[in-house]
């Protein structure tokens, strides 16, 4: 009788450890794909690429819902997640310094997080290509 009980406990421990291992593995994979560092880099390069392709007068909307979720988790204001200074775009979803990438198109760009009627962020960012730096 005692022997059977020992085997049962061993089996349960074995199954729990297996489940734990698989859960950690899945969580690790999910976290890697949507990590702050990866998303900051992806968004900043994406923004730089479409700014390079754009001409003055254009307006571009970018869905940054994943980034919004990260800012909510880290307590950062989503409205300050994208900063464009000169020809550099910096995307920051956490407390770190964010990720900066340069674009070669010499235009003035404004970046604003879109809000709904209730004043809540929709997860979209609106980029307006105002004019080139020579003002033409």
């Amino acid at each position, binding site marked *: 009788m005692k022997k059977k009980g020992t085997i049962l406990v061993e089996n349960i421990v074995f199954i729990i450890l297996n489940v734990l291992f698989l859960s950690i593995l899945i969580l*690790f994979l999910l976290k890697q794909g949507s990590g702050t560092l990866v998303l900051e*880099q992806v968004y900043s390069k994406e923004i730089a*690429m479409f700014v390079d*392709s754009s001409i003055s007068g254009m307006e571009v909307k970018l869905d940054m819902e994943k980034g919004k979720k990260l800012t909510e988790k880290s307590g950062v204001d989503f409205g300050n997640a994208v900063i464009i200074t*000169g020809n550099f775009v910096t995307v920051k979803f956490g407390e770190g310094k964010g990720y900066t990438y340069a674009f070669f198109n*010499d235009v003035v760009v404004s970046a604003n997080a879109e809000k709904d009627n209730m004043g809540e962020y929709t997860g979209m960012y609106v980029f307006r290509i105002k004019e080139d730096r*020579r003002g033409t």
Partner: protein
Amino acid sequence: MRDKRGTDKILSIYWFVVLTLIGGGVFAMVYVFYGPPYDVREIESEIFAGRIADCLSRQGTLNPNLFVEEGFNQEIGNTFSEDCNFNFNVEEGYGDEIQYFYKVEFYEVTDLEYPVFSFYGGNNNWEMDCYIKKENSKEYRKLAKCTEKRFYALDEDKNQHLIKILSVIGKSEKNAKQ
């Protein structure tokens, strides 16, 4: 009956060794996939070449600023970057080294071997990277990415020209694993 507890324990240890190996493998694969930065230089150099082409020609006609009475404007290379709204400032990590290069060559349709006029801008140290045969190794991935674009256009006198554009993006620190 034989006591199989010893065998079971060995099997369990073996099983966890296997799980550790699988876990290590998955970790290594994820690191290899997400570790290196996303390389956008090819797209960037294509966009850059497209912008240069837009600046040289509109609807198949070459920009009149490219010409003076005697022929091609030899001074165009000095002002082309500014006229086309290119800003070559780059992130802090690169220091003062410009990470862009472009070269424009004009050919007569009767002689497509030797250009009749050419000019360039940016950092010409990057040009050589375009002529090195690229292999899929770490060192080669650090080389600049290049795009060559060709198109035909007419000047104001309806003479046809072939224009070749070479655009190059360095920026390996931000786009390739160091």
